[in-house]
């Protein structure tokens, strides 16, 4: 999943970016409101974390303008401001959640995770597709009750596909959501991830969880709860 992180304090920004990256998120960073607005308008993020006290353009204005541009990804406000007036104002202009500094990194990850899951229509963190179950909180995958070892990028690819199950996801889209902005991307590596996932999830080929839609992309075919 690709996250936009907007925080003007360098050390904190680096810290949060590192914490999120270590849990498999691709993180694009901005240090002021104008840069945040530009990145938010240009890229399709899975979620954004925005500080309110930003230079050049404040966080509330950034959120307001992103929503006016119909950017619908979930937004979590991360700020030192604790007043209810600020909280309500932030939520009214379009934020979806609010976290006050200082915060537990685990709480931040859990909230971002919940926001992404809910924005894709999944109310629970444990997703079940027939014999395959995916715990999006602990990032554990099982098939027929047996744990399956996946690399971080394999898991991220699988998670994106299952959260957008029944949708056709192009290689480009997958690439954009798995890597941060400045990463040197190679779309062929997606094919490698897909191949590996098919082998690990469906060794005997009976399930066919990931279908290739020629010329368009990939689709996770299993029904949730089935």
């Amino acid at each position, binding site marked *: 999943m690709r996250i936009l992180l907007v925080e003007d304090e360098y050390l904190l920004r680096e810290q949060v970016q590192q914490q999120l990256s270590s849990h498999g998120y691709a993180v694009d960073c901005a240090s002021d409101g104008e840069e945040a607005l530009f990145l938010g308008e240009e890229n399709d993020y899975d979620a954004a974390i925005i500080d309110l006290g930003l230079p050049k353009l404040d966080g509330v204005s950034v959120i307001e303008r992103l929503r006016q541009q119909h950017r619908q990804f979930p937004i979590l406000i991360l700020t*030192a401001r604790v007043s209810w007036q600020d909280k309500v104002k932030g939520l009214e202009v379009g934020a979806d959640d609010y976290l006050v500094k200082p915060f537990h990194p685990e709480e931040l990850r859990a909230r971002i995770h919940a926001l992404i899951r809910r924005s894709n229509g999944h109310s629970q963190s444990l997703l079940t597709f027939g014999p395959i179950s995916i715990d999006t909180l602990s990032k554990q995958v099982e098939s027929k009750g047996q744990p399956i070892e996946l690399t971080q990028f394999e898991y991220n690819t699988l998670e994106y596909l299952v959260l957008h199950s029944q949708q056709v996801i192009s290689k480009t889209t997958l690439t954009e959501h798995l890597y941060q902005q400045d990463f040197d991307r190679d779309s062929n590596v997606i094919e490698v991830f897909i191949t590996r996932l098919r082998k690990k999830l469906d060794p005997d080929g009976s399930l066919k969880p990931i279908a290739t839609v020629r010329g368009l992309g990939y689709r996770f075919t299993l029904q949730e709860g089935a």
Partner: protein
Amino acid sequence: MKNTASSLPSISRRLLLASVIVLPLFLLLTGWLLNGAMKRSLLLSQQAQLQANTYQILSAAEWDNGELWMPEVLPEARFQQIDSGLYGIISSENQLLWRSESSSMLATNTLLPELAPFAINQRQFLHRDNRFIFSFDVSWQLDENVRPLRIILFQSDHGFVAELAVFQGELWRWLTSMALFLTLAQYAVLRWGLSPLTRLAREVRALQQGKIANLSHNYPKEIQPVATNVNTLIANQQQQQQRFQHALADLAHSLKTPLAIIHGELSQQASSSASSMDKNQALEQQLQRMDQIIQHQLQRANRGTHSLSAQRIVLKPVIERITQALTKLYYQRGIEVVIDVDEQSFFHGREDDLMEVLGNIIDNAFKYTRSKVLVRVKSSPYKVSIEVIDDGKGIDTAYIEHIVQRGVRIDTLQPGQGIGLAVVQDIMLSYQGEFAIKANTDHGTCAQLIFNLPHSDEPINY
């Protein structure tokens, strides 16, 4: 504390009181002077008339063989009418030489009053015994002798008294009417003249009650500087408050961001090493304590009470904003929200204080409720009561007092800073309001806030 201002008379009362004392005195003096002038005028007129009558008598007098002869009919007809009120005599050396026919019924001794001794051309005019007395002393040349003559005229003062009485009656009637009219006119002029002050007082009260943000600019030039200065004071106070709030926000940001970084570093160390986790626990606790102290004290410093920035805030929109925001935050739980608020119910104070109180109370209800949150407002002329009720498991009564102490949380599994209700307590105290939590483990919790409203029904009139 007794209002000492009410024991001092108002400006209009002072002016009216002064005029009620001064005006009658002035009118009394005027009446007395006019009365005196009228009397003198009448007396002069009387004297002049008697003098003229005297000259008539003198011109009619003749001497025949040394004896005074007067015609039977004198030009002044009243001398011929018995008891006409006008009587004339001529005497010489205290001997009565002639008396008018009108005096025929009077005793002779009444016709020779005591007067000053004879002196040629002496005129005497007296008013006594209900009559005017005019005497004229002449010497009449008779051949070689000179005869001293005193002509005395008597005029009843009834006419004079009656005329004076009529005048006095008219005078005092008109003066009294003028006094009443002037008093009323003065009262009306005072009311009109002081109306800008009345309007100023009403506007200041409306300002205090939050009905207006500034005083108007169309006052007379004597008062406009007061209104202008009050508006300047309000603007300065608001700017100062804004600067203060911005400074507090910057301070919060400056303190909390480094705390967040330290927090993050400790978390990373804890995740990398089990031994670090134990060591860092004490640091974590102190960090949390620092954060709570910062949060609490910054919020306390930002609290305002009854200042010129207090406003009249309708409650329903504020409650709806907060419940909608919380519904978004607690979306997954599908909590039903019921708002029972009159459209007219309002709060008098600062909006950020109201939002802080309601935000914390309603957030607690959302956290601990099972399925439903009810917000109910009841208003009376001087108080407004806000109840927030949830249907959660309730709070043990033994811990209710503990809740309002900063830093104590009953349910440690719930996210939150733990100082929300202590902040509510602080704000309610600053507004001299009441805050109560009624709990029942079976039926959920009811948090009640009661605010006082300003009294607006005292009339302002000067």
